[in-house]
């Protein structure tokens, strides 16, 4: 099994490396929104002194850490897999004795992330000098605690996206469904603004959803803003959602593959 993963890694790394120029463009594209949110909120905080307890530096550190967390927990499975179901090229992968999404697809995503993170490092350092965040609140224990949280966040996100991608077995409009899902993440993950600044209703719902595990929860862990009770609560939610997303993905996948009729065959 290890050998299989090693080979898959070599293939996928080489494949992603081939598209490094595209990757850089993707990175630039993805960077702009968080930087704009950062600029908007720091300008408000600078005028008012603080927004709901958040100072300008709180916003700068929040979005600077968000850049890292988002890059670690996000995935691109919809773009690398949905078309295979639609054009029938999944057939070749289905006859292999390994799960296409849980082995090859997963490794492909991780290779993609490794490359984008390498690309992000110099950009992040430049942004660090442009915005001069004060990271004095960050402790080693917070960073260490956030690592398993981000890994859990990535797997939950990956399984949910994979399940949504598998809806391509039923409908050709899977990209529209994914766009809707993307908006839900935007609303409940803390991507636009730290969750305490969201309307009360959204905060209350967000607590029970997995999306804050992608951004808000690991960011606050790193910044050392959570109480022991909140940390434990977050990890329990992560555990529950991991189980739910495994079950959900398996159910969608198993029923989907049965419907698969390989277009063009």
């Amino acid at each position, binding site marked *: 099994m290890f050998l299989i993963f090693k080979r898959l890694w070599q293939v996928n790394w080489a494949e992603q490396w081939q598209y490094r120029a595209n990757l850089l*463009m993707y990175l630039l594209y993805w*960077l*702009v*929104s968080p930087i704009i949110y950062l600029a908007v909120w720091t*300008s408000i905080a600078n005028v008012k002194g603080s927004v*709901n307890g958040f100072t300008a530096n709180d916003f700068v550190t929040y979005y600077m850490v968000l850049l890292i967390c988002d890059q670690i927990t996000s995935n691109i499975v919809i773009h690398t897999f949905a078309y295979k179901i639609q054009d029938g090229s999944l057939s070749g992968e289905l006859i292999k004795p390994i799960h296409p999404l849980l082995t090859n697809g997963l490794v492909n995503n991780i290779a993609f992330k490794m490359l984008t993170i390498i690309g992000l490092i110099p950009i992040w350092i430049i942004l660090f000098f*442009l915005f001069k965040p004060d990271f004095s609140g960050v402790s080693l224990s917070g960073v260490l605690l956030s690592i398993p949280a981000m890994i859990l966040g990535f797997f939950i996100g990956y399984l949910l996206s994979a399940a949504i991608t598998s809806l391509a077995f039923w409908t050709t409009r899977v990209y529209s469904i994914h766009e809707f899902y993307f908006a839900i993440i*935007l609303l409940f993950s803390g991507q*636009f603004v730290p969750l305490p600044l*969201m309307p009360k209703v959204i905060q209350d719902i967000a607590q029970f959803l997995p999306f804050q595990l992608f951004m808000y929860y690991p960011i606050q862990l790193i910044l050392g803003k959570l109480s022991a009770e909140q940390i434990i609560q977050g990890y329990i939610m992560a555990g529950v959602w991991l189980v739910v997303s495994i079950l959900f993905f398996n159910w969608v996948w198993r029923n989907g593959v049965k419907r698969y009729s390989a277009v063009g065959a």
Partner: protein
Amino acid sequence: MQTLKLLSAFFKMNVQMSLAYRADTVVNILLNIMWLGWELLSLNIIFSNTETLGGWGLGELIALLGVFRLVNTLMIALIWPNTEKFNQSIRDGSMDYTILQPVNSMFLVTFSRITVWRFWDLILAVILIVVGINMADQVTSAPQVLTFILLAITGMIIIYSLWIVLIALTFWFVKFDNNVTILQALLDAGRYPATVYPVWLRIIVTFIIPIAVATTVPLQALRGELEAPQILTFILVSIVSFFLASRIWKAGLKQYSGASS
């Protein structure tokens, strides 16, 4: 006259093409409404925490959202579909047939594909602008509205010209099929007044990829913040950039040698 005839022919052709995918059109319109909801909610979140953003009120930001959506429509309804077609035609050499037509090739390349259903977005944008202006407390005079419209058009022309330059580069670098991604990437910066951005970002969105010239600047005209010389400068810049762009396009065409030869 001929141009108008051609435009209406393109329009009809594109209506027929999109009618083949009716259900998709409905889904896309629903998604569009969802994003409008999100945009208004995000403005509501911002303004529940502050009264002004860079000196602008909620009404002004709603009007800005309308102008942003105009540019966004230009991007999605015209720039993306035509760029895709153009990149394809450079790669497989079907550009040959475009050049053979007895019409301006730049016009042909930039207007032959139109995502028709996006037109409703224009109506929405105009509604947002009108509602936004009415919500802002300050009185807007007729000349201000006129300069606003004028500068919105010059902003669009500048973006259109930049687009021409970006795709014309493909004549020299065939593999450059990421040509408009940079435009799309910075587009989101048009949602908020450029005056709140740090200086380096303001320079990028004003001089390098001038999204702000098409979004923030017209709104500034509406607020009566611009003097006559500034307004004239923007008009002049748009004319110059359009001429430069068509020059670069012509030079690029000379480079083109087909795909097989």
